[in-house]
């Protein structure tokens, strides 16, 4: 499904007999989505992804849109099993979500439940990262575990929304709290990129979460991706890609960037792109 684009619209209200235009005409936010996925230079694909309600126009209004990416690890089939499980538990939780109750709490609970399932299935011989976003009433909530990426393009500028949970992050935080801003030593550690939190680890209790939602604006673009994209393309290049006009063009540009770099150790790569329009 490279570069595929789906237009997601809320269903237009039925016109009353007097033919007045619907109150929401031209005003409601719509989401246009796209995605890329590839195996890179690895033997098999261990990333998984999914959308909730992407093609169900009426459901977006009632229940929102969900985007999920999970990057599995554990080799053999374990990685794929872990990431598949992560995606399906999150999508399942999304379908049963009570949007009048705390969404951040439910997203965190869902992530931890997904972690428990993966632990059950794989007993520590595999795991997965997770990034997920819920788009509802023009607001965005997100949850993240591990080192996948959530990017926001707003006002033509790219920013990273989530923080990686890895050794580098943990050591950097310790430095900061001890009064240092010098990362030189910490950057030398061969383990710096090892993730510290993942679905399938015993005792997962901390997720990276938007505790209050982000209000979305027309023109905003969100990208949820594994580190096969986030770790292999520069932020500057990603920003250029997300400045393209449509998700299809954005995805084509991302794919082209990865192919042209042709990195020797290119990881599995997956990216979901959601463009907000009015």
């Amino acid at each position, binding site marked *: 499904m490279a570069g595929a684009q789906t237009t997601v619209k809320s269903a237009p209200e039925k016109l009353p007999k007097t033919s007045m235009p619907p109150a929401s005409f031209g005003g409601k936010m719509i989401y246009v989505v796209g995605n890329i996925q590839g195996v890179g230079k690895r033997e098999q694909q261990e990333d998984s992804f999914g959308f909730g309600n992407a093609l169900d126009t009426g459901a977006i209004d009632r229940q929102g849109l969900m985007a999920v990416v999970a990057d599995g690890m554990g080799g053999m089939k374990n990685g794929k099993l872990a990431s598949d499980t992560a995606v399906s538990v999150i999508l399942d939780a999304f379908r049963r979500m009570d949007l009048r109750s705390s969404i951040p709490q439910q997203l965190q609970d869902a992530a931890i439940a997904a972690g428990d399932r993966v632990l059950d299935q794989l007993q520590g011989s595999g795991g997965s990262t997770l990034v997920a976003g819920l788009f509802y009433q023009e*607001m965005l909530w997100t949850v993240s575990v591990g080192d996948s990426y959530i990017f*926001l393009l*707003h*006002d033509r*500028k790219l*920013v*990273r*929304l*989530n*923080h990686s949970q890895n050794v580098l*992050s943990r050591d*950097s*935080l310790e*430095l*900061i*709290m001890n*009064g*240092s*801003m*010098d*990362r*030189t030593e910490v950057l030398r550690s061969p383990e710096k990129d090892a993730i510290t939190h993942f679905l399938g680890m015993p005792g997962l209790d901390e997720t*990276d*979460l*938007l*505790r*209050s*939602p*982000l*209000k979305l604006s027309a023109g905003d673009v969100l990208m949820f991706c594994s580190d096969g994209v986030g770790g292999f393309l520069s932020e500057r290049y990603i920003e250029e890609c997300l400045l393209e006009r449509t998700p299809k063009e954005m995805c084509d540009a991302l794919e082209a960037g990865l192919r042209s770099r042709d990195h020797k150790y290119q990881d599995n790569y997956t990216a979901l792109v959601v463009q907000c329009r009015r």
Partner: protein
Amino acid sequence: MIDSFNFTNVGGRDENQDSLTVMSDRNRNLFIVADGLGGHQHGSQASGCVVSALSDCWRAARVWNRDALFSSFRQANDALLALQNQLRTTAKSTAALLSIEGNRASCANTGDSRIYFLRNSGIRMITEDHSVAFKKYKSGEINKDQIAADEDQSSLLRVMGNDTRWEPEAYEVDGLRPGDSFLLCTDGFWEYISDEEMLLDRLSADTARRWAQLMLLRVIERVPANHDNLSLITVILR
């Protein structure tokens, strides 16, 4: 109830010339950051002097209104001028001050230390930098994110320790609600992080301390070895 966290770091410099203070008195809360300029440790004495004088005046003020605020800045400036005489130095300092009482906030700054206000999903820089670079931004010559890199960024048009051009600009924010937040910071910090990132980290944090940590995790990736002193205070109303 107010949740706040403060952090300062010397960076790659020999000494930390930033000063800051957090205090509460009666039902008022005070937050100040100040960035000193001047060699031989005089910069840190300058910012320390300004913070000290402003705090003393704030505590002594029966009512904290515009008059009290301007009078305090005048007294702090006089104190710094006296210190300059004493030390035979031209050391100067910025100052950014936030005072919160009930649901009202009073902000003031001289120089290029900043105060931001955040509510729900929005962030707004309350203060304006008194710098040539900021003037260029206001006149449309450069963008907001080009200010940090501009060659005129360190040319200050107003600063404490001047005979003239020390007066602050003052702002009020009324109708404060639980969840509203403020960020005070010196240029060693705001140079390395965008407004959008400050907002995203606030949305991800449940405490003032966590908010500061998330922002500092971004900044630590970007600061070069010889970076400037940096200071910040995060404030969240409960």
